[in-house]
């Protein structure tokens, strides 16, 4: 076992870990020993090939298809230098103040989160795309919403030199997306923070952790030689994401009881919906995600967003099989897509646990309320598709594989609530939150409002697992804002000691 002595060890390099590393950069420049331990590789530029299966394997845990215990939902989360910020679309929204109020964490106020969010937006070159760079898939969504009189907004995105490859979810091949792999981690490294790729942390120990660096055929060589490491540090900051952070702490056998650890997992359960147009549209060219509709966020608890996916992901997101499925798939250049996100409640029974080998296991049961939201969202999406001129729509809960535009007035009948059956309706999630939630009480939270784990002044959490409830928006800016808070507290504690 190789011994390492550090001041701060950061576990994970995604939105949380990258933000913490960046904020602590000045300390590193002043001589503090800080390392980021990242499970996955640091890919070289030519290894971003844009090939669906290849990149899913390189950049996601379980290829982006980790199954919940009941097999009812797949979870997508990234790994590698930059974590999930390598594979998101870069949509950069700040959390609505009402969400922070609803979280009800004493000491956490929306002004502070918004101020830090603004800093993230500035760092990441967040802006609106020019009208000329909006493809048909996005314009049709916007136009459909407007024809229906529904609220539709453009997403600010964090790109620099975007060429419109449309491959955001497979890692940008043009290095345009401003994830932590492009902004915060390189900045931190320039100030002396060490980022160690291919390094899996087995467990957290008293003021430290045990990790293994493995050789990888992909990416740049790790900063540390392959082998087992025992790392001592004054502060440990866990930023491994809403699945791996709770799992890591659960298998670490910490010296305090944390009854809420792993509980209150939320995920924005999602559907990918598809419609077919009479002619080819621009859909895979250009940035894939430019608009969202939050018309129903408060009433029916769902968001609608534009999206555009790849052949396998699209195929598995359709209910059905055989000739009609193949026929729809055979004209991908005619497809318009909408992503539905259900805004799920935090419930203690939805949780992360660990299996016999210490691996994460996620229990998530889709509540009737979530299924209601998905049902209403399918019908709303069908209305948008038809308002945008689609010839036919695929609703996974539909009585038939395709609903024709001539049937647009019968959506309530043709998309029955009884058709929303998990398994038949493919449900996936990529906004994974909770499990180490902030709060003031040991009974229903894991950390305080600064991300410090209750009872362990050297241990912090700084990622989406802190969220006491779902974010109701794409979460990365909020993760980075909270991580910035945590870093401030870590820096203060180091200076105090």
């Amino acid at each position, binding site marked *: 076992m190789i011994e390492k002595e550090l001041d701060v060890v950061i576990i994970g390099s995604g939105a949380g870990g990258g933000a913490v590393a960046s904020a602590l950069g000045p300390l590193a420049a002043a001589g503090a020993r800080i390392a980021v331990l990242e499970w996955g590789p640091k890919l070289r530029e030519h290894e971003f090939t844009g090939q669906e299966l290849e990149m899913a394997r390189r950049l996601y845990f379980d290829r982006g298809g980790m199954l919940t215990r009941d097999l009812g939902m797949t979870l997508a989360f990234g790994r590698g230098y930059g974590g999930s910020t390598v594979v998101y679309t870069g949509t950069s929204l700040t959390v609505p103040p009402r969400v922070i109020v609803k979280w009800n964490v004493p000491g956490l106020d929306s002004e502070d989160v918004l101020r830090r969010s603004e800093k993230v937006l500035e760092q990441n070159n967040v802006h609106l795309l020019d009208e000329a760079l909006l493809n048909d898939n996005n314009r049709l969504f916007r136009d459909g919403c407007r024809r229906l009189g529904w609220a539709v907004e453009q997403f600010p995105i964090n790109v620099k030199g975007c060429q419109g490859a449309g491959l955001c979810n497979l890692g940008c091949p043009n290095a345009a997306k401003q994830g932590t792999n492009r902004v915060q981690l390189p900045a931190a490294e320039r100030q002396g923070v060490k980022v160690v790729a291919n390094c899996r942390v087995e467990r957290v120990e008293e003021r430290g952790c045990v990790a293994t660096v493995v050789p990888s055929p992909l990416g740049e060589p790790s900063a540390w030689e392959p082998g087992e490491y025992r790392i001592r540090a004054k502060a440990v900051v866990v930023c491994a994401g809403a699945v791996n952070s709770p799992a890591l702490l659960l298998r670490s056998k910490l010296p305090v009881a944390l009854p809420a650890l792993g509980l209150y997992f939320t995920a924005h359960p999602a559907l990918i919906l598809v419609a077919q147009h009479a002619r080819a549209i*621009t859909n895979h*060219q250009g940035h894939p995600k430019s608009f969202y509709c939050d018309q129903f966020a408060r009433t029916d608890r769902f968001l609608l967003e534009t999206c555009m996916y790849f052949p396998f992901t699209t195929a*598995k997101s359709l209910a*059905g*099989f055989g000739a009609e499925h193949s026929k729809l798939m055979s004209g991908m250049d005619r497809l318009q897509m909408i992503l539905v996100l259900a805004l799920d409640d935090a419930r203690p029974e939805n949780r992360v646990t660990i299996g016999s080998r210490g691996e994460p296991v996620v229990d998530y049961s889709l509540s009737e309320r979530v299924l209601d939201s998905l049902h209403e969202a399918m019908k709303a999406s069908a209305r948008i598709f038809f308002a945008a001129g689609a010839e036919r729509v695929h609703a996974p809960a539909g009585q038939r594989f395709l609903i024709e535009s001539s049937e647009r007035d019968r959506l309530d009948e043709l998309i029955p609530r009884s058709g929303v059956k998990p*398994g038949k309706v493919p449900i996936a999630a990529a906004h994974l939150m909770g499990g180490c939630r902030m709060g003031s009480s040991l009974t229903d939270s894991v950390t305080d409002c600064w991300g410090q784990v209750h009872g362990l002044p050297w241990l912090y959490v700084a990622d989406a697992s802190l969220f006491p409830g779902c974010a109701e928006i794409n979460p990365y800016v909020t993760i980075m804002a909270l991580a910035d808070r945590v870093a401030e507290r870590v820096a203060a504690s180091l200076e105090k000691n």
Partner: protein
Amino acid sequence: MGVLGKREWDFLFRVAERVVPEVARLEPDDLGRFRAIVEEALAERPPALQRQFRLFLAVVRYAPAARYLVPFDWLDQTRQDAVLAWFQDCPVGLIRKGFWGLKSLVFMGYYGRAEVGVAIGYRPDPRGNERLRVAR
């Protein structure tokens, strides 16, 4: 030895032909790539999930005997499709989820091959914005 034996592969191809009809027309090399993709994906899953998958394949194969008195392989294509549709819409959630897993593997094997993308109109371009400008 992979996750599936020869008989299980033969049966999986039978099902695959109903899930994606084009599988029946694949050349041997393409079928080999289909198999390699599925094999690799299965091999990465935990042993318990691999066992569940093999068990589910057996259920799909022999469950039709309860109604038709013969296994899936012996049914004509119309009845095979009816059986698969029943699995997809089954009142038992675990069966529906198992069928989704089975058909997802088939989709992965077929649509995961890069050359299929071009054939079905999937044409991303590293310089997509230029194509947008041309399209206008």
